[in-house]
């Protein structure tokens, strides 16, 4: 989060303005009841409890959505075919967040990744294993799911992604 990290202010040409009257105010934001259709999520979540991954395939363009989507934007068709997916994937994009530890005050560098699960055509945000050095993250990095120990149901059963150790030559090529 930007406010917590160290900042050095940059100089620019400023102009001073006279102050007009300012009234502080605050809003109590009410409780909202957002409506969603997540019927298509049920088989997905059920399988997730068994540590199995399924994606929803559009029968028109054959794209596989993981997690499932209700409507394929390309074809305007309801995807209705469930396909099994492997636990492995690749890093489609990543960024590094700089969070300050509230207790020690150290800035933690944590890579946050967009993972494309093998066999699917979509990406999803996830965290990388704490063992991975943030400097080693790269696009195309092979990763594998690390399951949570106590299964509560829901997307957080995918705790984070582990790095897959692979010595094959083609990986080095992809790394540039």
């Amino acid at each position, binding site marked *: 989060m*930007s406010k917590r990290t160290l900042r050095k202010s940059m100089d620019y040409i400023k102009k001073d303005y006279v102050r007009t009257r300012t009234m502080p105010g605050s809003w109590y934001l009410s409780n909202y009841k957002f409506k969603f259709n*997540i019927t298509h999520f049920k088989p997905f979540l059920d399988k997730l409890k068994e540590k199995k991954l399924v994606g929803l395939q559009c029968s028109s363009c054959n794209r596989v959505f993981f*997690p499932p989507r209700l409507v394929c934007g390309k074809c305007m068709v309801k995807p209705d075919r469930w396909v099994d997916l492997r636990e492995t994937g690749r890093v489609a*994009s990543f*960024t590094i967040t700089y969070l300050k530890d509230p207790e020690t005050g150290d800035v933690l560098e944590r890579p946050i990744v967009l993972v494309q699960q093998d066999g699917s*055509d979509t990406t999803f*945000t996830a965290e990388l294993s704490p063992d991975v050095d943030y400097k080693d993250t790269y696009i195309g990095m092979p990763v594998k799911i690390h399951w949570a120990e106590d299964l509560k149901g*829901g997307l957080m059963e995918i705790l984070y992604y582990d790095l897959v150790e692979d010595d094959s030559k083609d990986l080095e090529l992809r790394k540039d």
Partner: protein
Amino acid sequence: MGRQVCIASAGFSEHASKRSDVSMPELVSEAIEDCLNKAPSVDINDIDAFVNGNMPAFEGANMPELWMTDWMGARNKPLLRITTGGTTGGSVTIGGYYTVAAGLPGIDTVLAIAFEQQSQGDTSTGLASVAYGEISVLNSLGITYEQLTQLLSAGAAIGVASYQATNYMRRSKITEEDLARVVVQNRHNAAKTWWAHLKMPDLTIEDVLNTPYISYPLRYGMVCPASDGACALLFTTEEKAKELCDIPVYVNGVASVANETGVLGYNGSGAGQLDTSEQLGAMKSAELAFNQAKISFPRKEIDYAEVYSPFPNQELMWVERLGLFEENSATEMYKNGVTAPKGELPINCSGGVNSTNAIGASAMERPAEAALQIMGKASNQVPKTVHNAIGHGWGGIINLITMIVMGDEPARKAK
């Protein structure tokens, strides 16, 4: 086919991080005053209809157009509000264009206004309130709000932009120095523009690279500010525009295209854009707008471009995706000075969104500045004659693109 629409004038308010001297309506009327001053023969009473917009919920004041009517001079006149998030300004511009092009009886001159006073409210809360309806489905699937803000780098626009930056940097093999170079050019240009916010005439690449990271690969020095400001554009018909100003700017093509979202999908699903720097939506919207304007080779025919780039990687990306440069060649162009005000294809001579970002107004300031460059009235005027120019905007989860193509003469009629 509707009527030919022209831009007769464009105006700005002064931009700063805290315009503590004015209230929101005063800020808006400042831009309108500047707009009308540039076209002296127009009076506020000559304006037939109004289109306006700002980002909802950012100032904690909803429906500002209703209590701002008197300040805009819109009393007893048709009034329309359009708001589409980051592209609000672009959509308001297109709304103003449509209102004139429709040819309704008695509606010839339309004032389009976009504004934002971010110092009044909390931008992060505003963004959260815009997105929360959609992302709250993730909460019901077990991801807490805290985890989600972490995943999206505190939830602000930089959260999605940094993924895009990593993608683009890999695709075009550029370094952070190349990103900093874009920032330096923009901030130098801003120093020559009277209404810009971050005026840094002495900024160097090293200065930018010495600032800490906000979210890799974007540093604090590379990121756009949060500004207060407003922008106004005067649309009118071809005949009237010739009376009102010396060089009327013809609006030859407009497009607004949404692609699938990047980073976050609808209803908690996977996101369809595997590579967020690919931007098929931008290509499509450029194609539509250029086709309308009968521009077949934008690289040669466009003389000036204003692209919506809060982050430097986006500026490099958009100029490529909109067809102004070949893929992966934008960095070279910035190195060689092609995009500088004295270069062949000047880009963002106002400093761009990178130097001034009043969110709701930003996407309108792009076509407004491009129109002023064609008229020859811009404050950082390029030395060469500008015949065709573009104004671009993006918003949403990097998926909605607006494009406005302008020229000093109407689009060539098909044979």
